[in-house]
């Protein structure tokens, strides 16, 4: 081996600037995002916690901590209890329907057919168009006088005469009668989330390796058995993800209820988010509003844990 010669020492200035130092550069590039999230999500979240323990109002937003009174008051309020129940009922019912329908729809969309892009566009509209505007279409559908749905019922003789199935009145008053209003809200929630769940399921179904199904076919498994033993277990994580995201969006949604019923008739369609809005913003009771909204948090935390688990599990596959 050749003996080492004497190299010129390296001046500090020659080391390349910050633009070359990975560690420093990494922190510099990540900092704005982390700072923003801390300031605009972290801090407000903490403030929501503090408000819920205080007696702050819009007129007097100072923080005087009064303990858990707001939560107790909320629980004692029958409207809150109704909103809590509705939130769960609306979410679980609509998402169960969504999962079933999206599976059927995804299977249909997997098949080749002409005009797929148009069908896809139409099916996706409820998710791709702004929800507050899409819901307006439903508002007309459920209008107390001009409802096209009522017109169809009348046309078919199911409404409007004494012997009709739905009675002699000329209109159903979809949003004016508690049972119908609840069904309407659930229906619009299904309509809203179905496209999202379909796209997720579609991706899940098309990611099943073809040779796996062919192998099962060669092994003599019936179509029914193939579905049961291969398709369902393999797509279960994806279905769960579709369900969990559907839950997050429905559980925290304000728009559908706000635009359709504003919680009425007489609070029967009130949900946690709408009640938070009416109490906290329109009523000006920041403390109560914050407390009501925080009742959503445990559910969201649980959902987040499940989503993480699902994502991990699918990563392994």
């Amino acid at each position: 081996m050749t003996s080492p010669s004497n190299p010129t020492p390296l001046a500090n200035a020659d080391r390349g600037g910050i633009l070359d130092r990975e560690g420093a550069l990494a922190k510099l590039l990540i900092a704005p995002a982390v700072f923003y999230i801390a300031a605009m999500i972290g801090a407000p979240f903490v403030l929501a916690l503090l408000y819920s323990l205080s007696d702050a109002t819009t007129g007097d937003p100072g923080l005087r901590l009064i303990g858990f009174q707001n939560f107790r008051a909320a629980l004692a309020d029958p409207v809150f209890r109704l909103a809590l129940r509705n939130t769960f009922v609306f979410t679980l019912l609509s998402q169960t329907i969504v999962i079933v329908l999206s599976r059927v729809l995804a299977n249909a969309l997997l098949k080749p057919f002409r005009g797929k892009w148009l069908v896809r566009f139409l099916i996706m509209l409820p998710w791709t168009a702004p929800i507050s505007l899409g819901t307006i279409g439903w508002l007309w559908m459920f209008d107390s006088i001009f409802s096209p749905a009522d017109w169809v019922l009348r046309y078919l003789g199911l409404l409007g005469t004494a012997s009709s199935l739905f009675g002699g009145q000329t209109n159903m008053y979809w949003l004016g009668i508690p049972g119908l209003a609840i069904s309407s809200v659930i229906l619009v929630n299904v309509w809203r989330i179905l496209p999202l769940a379909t796209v997720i399921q579609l991706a899940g179904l098309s990611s099943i390796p073809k040779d796996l199904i062919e192998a099962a076919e060669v092994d003599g498994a019936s179509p029914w058995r193939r579905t049961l033993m291969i398709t369902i277990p393999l797509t279960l994580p994806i279905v769960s993800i579709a369900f969990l995201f559907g839950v997050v969006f429905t559980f925290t949604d304000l728009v559908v209820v706000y635009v359709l019923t504003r919680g009425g008739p007489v609070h029967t369609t009130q949900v946690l988010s709408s009640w938070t809005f009416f109490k906290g913003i329109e009523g000006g009771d920041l403390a109560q509003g914050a407390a009501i909204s925080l009742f959503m948090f445990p559910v969201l935390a649980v959902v987040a844990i499940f989503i993480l688990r699902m994502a991990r599990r699918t990563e392994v596959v």
Partner: protein
Amino acid sequence: MGRVEIRAISKHFGAVRAVDHVDLATREGEFLVLLGPSGCGKTTLLRMIAGIEEPTSGVLVIDERVVTHLPPRMRNIAMVFQSYALYPHMTVYKNIAFPLRARGVDEEAVRRKVEWAAGMFKIGRLLDRKPRELSGGERQRVALARAMVREPSVFLLDEPLSNLDALLRASAREELRQFQRRAGVTTIYVTHDQVEAMGLGDRIVVMNQGKVRQVGTPLEIYQWPADTFVATFVGSPPMNLLEQEDVLLGFRPETFRPVDAVEGSEGVVTFPFEVTYTEYLGAERLVYGNVGEKSHARHVVSRLPGSLTLPLETGKTYPFAVARRDLRRFHRKSGLAFSGEST
């Protein structure tokens, strides 16, 4: 120009010592091959020379300048990756021009140099294509042209032939060697393929588990392995090793022949060889079998020229021998060759 000195370089990834205290120096204009099994640290060492991995400790000198902590662009090195790493969104011309433009060379000079480099690798007609429109061999030429276009003082290659099919690989090897001779650029070449290493290298550095096991010419590496690792890693089939008390006796399969076919002015050592299996490969014949008593028989291989048509039957024992000058001796515990027996 073109001297790389590596002084006590180490690289640890957590508890793993990928490169462990390596000392190495290139000679000007030489073709140095880093050879070793995958995970031996050869690629990490190359990446440290390139500057895309920072050493945990040690000093790196290129052309009398300490570059240990310099970013790659300040080292005047060029590198060709295993994947060729062509910029997929740029044409061949722009790919080759990239290192020049990054250094602010004026467009007229860029055009001249790109054409020069393209001519050298005979890819002039490909200049307007995108990398995805090229064959494997063409991509490799583009990568080489891009590396050479700015006339680096050191040229680093990371298994550049491993993505080519076997047929292309042989001709690419030859071309690479000729081109390196012509350009005279110091070249460090990483491979796990001993045929490439033997065929290309002026000197070979055999590495294992982060350490350099031997540095030498292909002849030295093959004839005088520094330890049992080198003895068994280089050569196919590897060197036979027999235990004799506290010594390991080593001999290449082609030196192990029927007694009559061995010439040895310094004498021969004979072994009774029980044949268990033979493979006829055309130019040569590989004979597998055992040497020694039943209780501690050792598996050895003999490689005979195809022209030697002597019948060898499975299950029978024949007298085989090795010339004394072809025998190598290693310490049984350390595996190191006896001193004075290797160069």
